[in-house]
């Protein structure tokens, strides 16, 4: 395996010392089959143990290692280092407050996530003797792609609306809400659609499509949001003809 030297320019921020983030360069030997995360781990293990970054599974499943690489939100464990030149800039995800170095504050994301009620809402509890809830392959296909989200938050980092509308629930949360609305076992669409139509909901999305472009799992959040917009418009139009069911 060939080894070359590359310069990794990393954004550093120490909340105890720094007023604003700064950058620090590390020239390190890298192997051409490395991912960007392996270069960061090399720095942490061999050059500068004070570097802080999040990672866990190393196989694009846990969603921990999202960062901006050369200005583009990337899952660093999936991002080949060979696709960049001699200098690679690694920064924390845009649109998020920075806790330290490459680590961002997640609580704002979790607040938005919970707001869309991402769980099955059933009008009544299913009795055990009724057996398991059966779902056809077609019913599963209605939402399966939206359930592939790993909460890596790259979509929030790329979205220009998130930068400017703090109330915007954002791509991953709205796609997840839509996922449950499409689930044949769920009966909470009316509740979620009220949240969707509210300030910061689906109609705040201006269809930049950046979320779908950067999603490492092919979830297509912007597609989910556009579908939810259409569903809500149809639901609104229907309400003039058919009286709306009262939410539980």
């Amino acid at each position: 395996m060939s080894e070359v030297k590359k310069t990794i320019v990393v954004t550093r921020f120490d909340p105890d010392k720094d007023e604003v983030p700064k950058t620090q360069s590390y020239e390190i030997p890298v192997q051409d089959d490395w991912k960007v995360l392996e270069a960061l781990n090399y720095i942490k293990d061999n050059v500068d143990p004070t570097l802080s970054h999040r990672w866990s599974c190393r196989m694009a499943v846990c969603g921990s290692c999202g960062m901006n690489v050369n200005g583009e939100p990337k899952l660093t464990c999936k991002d080949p280092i060979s696709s960049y030149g001699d200098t690679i800039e690694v920064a924390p995800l845009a649109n998020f407050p920075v806790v330290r170095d490459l680590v961002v504050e997640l609580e704002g994301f979790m607040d938005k996530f919970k707001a869309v009620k991402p769980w099955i809402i059933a009008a009544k509890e299913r009795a055990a003797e009724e057996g398991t809830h059966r779902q056809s392959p077609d019913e599963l296909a209605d939402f399966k792609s939206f359930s592939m989200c790993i909460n890596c938050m790259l979509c929030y980092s790329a979205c220009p609306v998130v930068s400017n509308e703090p109330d915007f629930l954002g791509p991953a949360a709205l796609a997840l809400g839509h996922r449950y609305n499409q689930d044949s076992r769920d009966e909470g669409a009316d509740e979620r659609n009220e949240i969707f139509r509210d300030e910061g909901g689906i109609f705040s999305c201006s269809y930049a499509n950046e979320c779908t472009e950067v999603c490492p799992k092919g979830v297509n959040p912007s597609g989910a949001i556009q579908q939810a917009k259409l569903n809500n418009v149809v639901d609104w139009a229907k309400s003039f003809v058919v009286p709306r069911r009262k939410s539980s």
Partner: protein
Amino acid sequence: MTHAVPRVDAMKPSKPGPTRTAPPRPPDKFPGGGRYPAYLAFGACGAFLMISASLLTRGIWALGNGEAAWDAYRAGLGHPAYLVYHVAAFLGLTWFVLRLFRLFPATQPYRIGPLKRPPDAVLVAGLYGLFFTVLAVGTLFLGGAML
């Protein structure tokens, strides 16, 4: 209004955490780099849609007010300012539909009503077919060939 500096409260938690944080940065390439200019141009084409819809509404009003009103409307469209606008609107709307039609298939659900969604190529061909039909009918209508 979109601007390049993010609000410091973007993705801010509802309750502040124990650690001081640095404010969020905007997406690195916004607004002039990467795919963002195409998105901004797409949004800006909304102006053409709005003005063209107003012109169309005025045309329908003229059509309902007799031949003299309709002829005056058509003559008005021949004004040099309108001609310049028409060229700009045609280019803008063509750009708009090209991007919209590229993105459209990905927004379609697995099933449309009771039917499975058609292949993307069929969807895109249908959209282009509709676009060129509307364009041809509009041109013939405003050119006087259909009245």
